[in-house]
């Protein structure tokens, strides 16, 4: 899947770039973005270390287990393959909480911790599990309940009007994500054996 989309995006870009006369910009974008990717990754080190450290404390104190147990009725439906007491559930719940509150800086490290813990349960290390895809889809559909700070700054007083529309739209996209994952994971072409 990603093989075709990734190649397709680049191939279309080169063809379109030739047609629109923007081929120089395409080259420049490729070089600049590869640099940006490294800058973003390196920039994550500090914030990752901070939250992973705090999370380790939360884990050692038993806090994560308490949170995971409390929300088990919901998570068991979304992630039936993950054992009840697995630490991944705690990280998933905390990642979603951080996302809902608009704490992007905390959400990413928590999400990556959850991925690492889900990977422990994965028999085929280069292929995503059902639980991982569900977790990712919920993340990409955004479960944010607070309007992002950048939008607040842009919209000024009008921001109070989009508060409810944002929650409703988020709700629709998240429900769609869950529904799609459930439906697609049963299809043969997306099975672990045929994965791409």
């Amino acid at each position, binding site marked *: *899947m*990603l093989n075709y*989309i*990734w190649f397709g*995006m680049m191939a279309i*870009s080169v063809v379109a*770039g030739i047609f629109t006369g*923007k081929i120089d910009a*395409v080259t420049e*974008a490729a070089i600049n*973005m*590869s640099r940006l*990717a*490294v800058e973003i*990754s*390196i920039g*994550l*080190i*500090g914030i*990752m*270390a901070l939250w992973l*450290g705090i999370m*380790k404390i939360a884990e*050692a*104190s*038993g*806090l994560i287990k308490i949170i995971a147990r409390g929300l088990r009725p919901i998570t068991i439906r979304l992630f039936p393959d993950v054992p009840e007491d697995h630490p991944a559930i705690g990280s998933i719940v905390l990642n979603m909480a951080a996302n809902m509150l608009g704490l992007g800086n905390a959400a990413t490290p928590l999400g*990556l911790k959850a*991925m*690492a813990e*889900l990977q422990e349960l994965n028999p085929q290390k*280069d*292929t*995503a599990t059902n639980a991982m*895809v569900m977790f*990712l*889809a919920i*993340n*990409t*559909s*955004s479960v944010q309940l607070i309007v992002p*700070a*950048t939008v607040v700054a*842009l919209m000024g007083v*009008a921001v109070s*009007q*989009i*508060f*409810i*529309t944002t929650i409703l*739209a*988020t709700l*629709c996209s998240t429900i*769609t994500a869950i529904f799609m*994952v459930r439906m*697609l*994971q049963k299809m043969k072409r*997306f099975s672990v054996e045929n*994965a*791409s």
Partner: protein
Amino acid sequence: MIESFVESLNFGSKFIIPLLLVGIPMYALSVRKVKVYEVFVEGAKDGFSIAVRIIPYLVAILVAVGMFRASGALDLLLNFLSPVLVFIGFPPENLPLALMRPLSGSGSLGLLTDLVNQHGADSLTAKIGATMFGSSETTFYVLAVYFGSVSISRSRHALIAGLTADAVGALSAVYFCKLLLT
């Protein structure tokens, strides 16, 4: 009433991180006698390796997205899609943002800024745009970072599910704004 609620929510969210940074170690130290400093350092060690592991995945995705944006392919796609979407009542001014949102966070923020500057924050166009922006995520980036961090290259149905959710999110942003704000 909604104004003050939104204000207090945004105000309250400023305190969450500081409270977590102090509250979690405080609980651990006082209730469980956890050696908080030692445990913190132990956990923080993984920060570097995870961040470095993401690099190749992020390079692959961001380069493709960057090329796509720079080539004008997005505009071609726009021309191709707009007759269909206008037919179902999708406002053409919001279409670039809807297409950009899953590809690039900074790109879509730039487009939203344009919408607000051109039409004013009080316009329906800006409100639809802001709703779209707030109700979805940069799908390609999240995919690269999350799967990259555990070295997964076979993502199965994750992208399709994510993009479908983005499309439904954009459509429902239009629908709810038209329904509730006009």
